[in-house]
């Protein structure tokens, strides 16, 4: 039985090597297809993610990390409670737009204006999430599809709003007017890194408290493990569902607000959708097996890949979409270890009786 024991210890190591090996082969293949200079590409990648003059690139990574981590937390909050809300993109977009819209209205209020704008983004995101909750609880629409389908109205309606009625025509792009400097998120001293990451850290801590110290945290978690148990025990399942979704949507709204107030200072059509923040957030949450403690790590990891790839494009002309490919492949390799995350996938739909 000695060989069995040795195999047991070796197995995970072999698996990790296999995964790394496969990913590197993939990267080489892709780089070859774009005629890139390998060493130049790698140097560009590393420098652009965590280096740069005065750590400029590192701050860029941290800025993205805030957004990705935030969306990961938003997804995690819902998934943990057994709610497969994949409508984060829609919630993010309505949150961002609401924030920009409000920001334009409160430009004279200074710091309070920032607060009001963020809150308005939160409310918008929460509302959008509650909408899909309503469809699930009262209309019987599976949350997965309901939340997903609502992404599209969110995208199209906000796109319309900034292409026509609220468009900054002079700028020539489908976007709102530039927000007044009064409502820009301040930067960390001597840097170009906005306070967004601080806000997300705040959200992170609040969620940790909710998960491990509040009633809702435990009710939600148990509901994620077994809806029938929670229902039969007499817990207010409908309320728990709406609370959880509202929190998830609100966090997405905060992320949208940070992108608007801290980075772009306006809402441009597609600015939140193109970089796939919501979807990256979802896979980041899955990467850490829905363990909130490790989300910042995953957020940083994916953000680094993102900015590194952008750098690779600048320096070695490698299309930055390589980042998306790498992230997807990583989650694929991890997925085998996660087991069944959704109770959905094992049944073909609700069976009555």
């Amino acid at each position, binding site marked *: 039985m000695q060989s069995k024991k040795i195999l047991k210890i070796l197995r995970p190591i072999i698996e990790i090597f296999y995964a790394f090996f496969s990913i590197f082969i993939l990267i080489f293949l*892709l780089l070859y*297809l*774009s005629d890139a200079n390998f060493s130049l590409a790698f140097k560009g990648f590393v420098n652009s993610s965590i280096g740069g003059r005065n750590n400029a690139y590192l701050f860029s990574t941290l800025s993205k990390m805030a957004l990705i981590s935030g969306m990961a937390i938003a997804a995690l909050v819902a998934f943990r409670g057994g709610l*497969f809300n994949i409508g984060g993109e829609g919630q993010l977009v309505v949150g961002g737009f609401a924030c920009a819209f409000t920001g334009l209205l409160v430009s004279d209020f200074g710091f309070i204006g920032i607060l009001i704008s963020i809150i308005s983004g939160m409310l918008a995101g929460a509302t959008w999430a509650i909408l899909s909750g309503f*469809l*699930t609880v009262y*209309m*019987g*629409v*599976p949350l*997965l*599809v*309901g939340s*997903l*389908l*609502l992404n*599209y*109205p969110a995208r*199209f*309606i906000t796109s*319309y709003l900034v*292409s*026509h009625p609220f468009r900054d025509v002079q700028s020539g792009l489908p976007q709102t007017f530039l927000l007044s400097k009064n409502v820009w998120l301040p930067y960390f001293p001597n840097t170009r890194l906005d306070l967004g990451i601080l806000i997300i850290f705040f959200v992170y801590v609040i969620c940790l408290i909710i998960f491990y110290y509040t009633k809702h945290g435990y009710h939600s978690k148990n509901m994620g493990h077994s*809806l029938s148990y929670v*229902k039969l025990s007499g817990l207010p*399942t*409908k309320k728990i*569902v709406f609370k959880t979704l509202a929190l998830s949507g609100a966090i997405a709204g905060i992320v949208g607000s940070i992108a608007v107030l801290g980075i772009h200072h306006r809402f441009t059509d597609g600015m939140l959708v193109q970089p*796939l923040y919501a*979807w*990256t957030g979802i*896979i980041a949450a*899955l990467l850490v097996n829905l363990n909130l403690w490790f989300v910042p790590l995953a957020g940083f990891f994916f953000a680094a890949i993102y900015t590194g790839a952008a750098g690779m494009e600048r320096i070695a002309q*490698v*299309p930055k*979409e*390589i*980042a*998306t*490919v790498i*992230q*997807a*492949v990583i*989650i*694929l*390799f991890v*997925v*085998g270890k*996660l*087991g*069944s*995350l*959704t109770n*959905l*996938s094992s049944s*073909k*739909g*609700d069976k*009555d*009786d």
Partner: protein
Amino acid sequence: MTEIFDPEFFSSIARLTTPILLAALGGSICHRAGIFNIGLEGFILLGAFMAVLGSFFANSAFIGALTAVFGGLFLSIIFAEFHLRRKGDPIVISIAINILALGLSTYLLRSIFKVSGVFSHPEIEKIPHIQLPIIENVKILDLLINDQSILFYLSIVIVFILHYFLKYHKFGLWIRVVGENPEVLKSSGINPVRIKFLVLLLCGLLCGLAGAQLSISNVGLFVENMSAGRGWIAVVAVLLCGGRPIPLFLLIILFGLVDSLSLRIQGLGLPQQITELLPYIVCLAVLIIVSYKKLRTFSRIIY
């Protein structure tokens, strides 16, 4: 009124229905086999790109269709490896595949064709259309189903083949069994994993063709993120119909109709985003109606 419901409207229905139908057929085989594959969006997208790739370099639409199928099969094998062999969650895998296809197709577009956004070239061969001489005389049928891509006719044929296949063929029976309870299949001496693998391959094939219909049938170009949500509509359609081919067919014709309508309305001066929204609103509405009716029949209270 006549501006909207002009001949262009009717002849577009079949064209717009085909990709969703093909993908949904692939998705419904997965559904019946108990594989929760919601990655159709990614399958179609990669298929669309691979179709343009093959058609351009080989100057042949047929090769284009072939490479599209390879694209679909490639994703099928990935799905199989991580779901069937490594027991990964199919929803997570589907999301990963959607993202992978988006990244890969855009990356290859930019690195192989050296363009961003759109690749269009006269040398891309398009899938030929078929003229049915008999139909020409019947005006309405002529508009609806004449002069359409081969894939359209193929998809209709597949609807019926699938229907009979599931009902009367040995393999069709196994697919239904593995979807209800794989243990039963196993205890009868048949390997459920093998059945599911073949099902995934079939799905990849059909979705690949769906992508080909998108990119090299009417037009001959590839746009970034070309599948544009059609895969998700196919997913919803499959869920609503429980993977049954004939109701699926009818439902998707409805979506094709709405799709065509939204295109015609764009010409009337309504903003583009609102008309693009129309298919999704209809999809959502149908989803809500069917789900609510189903909810009313349930005796158990879930939430």
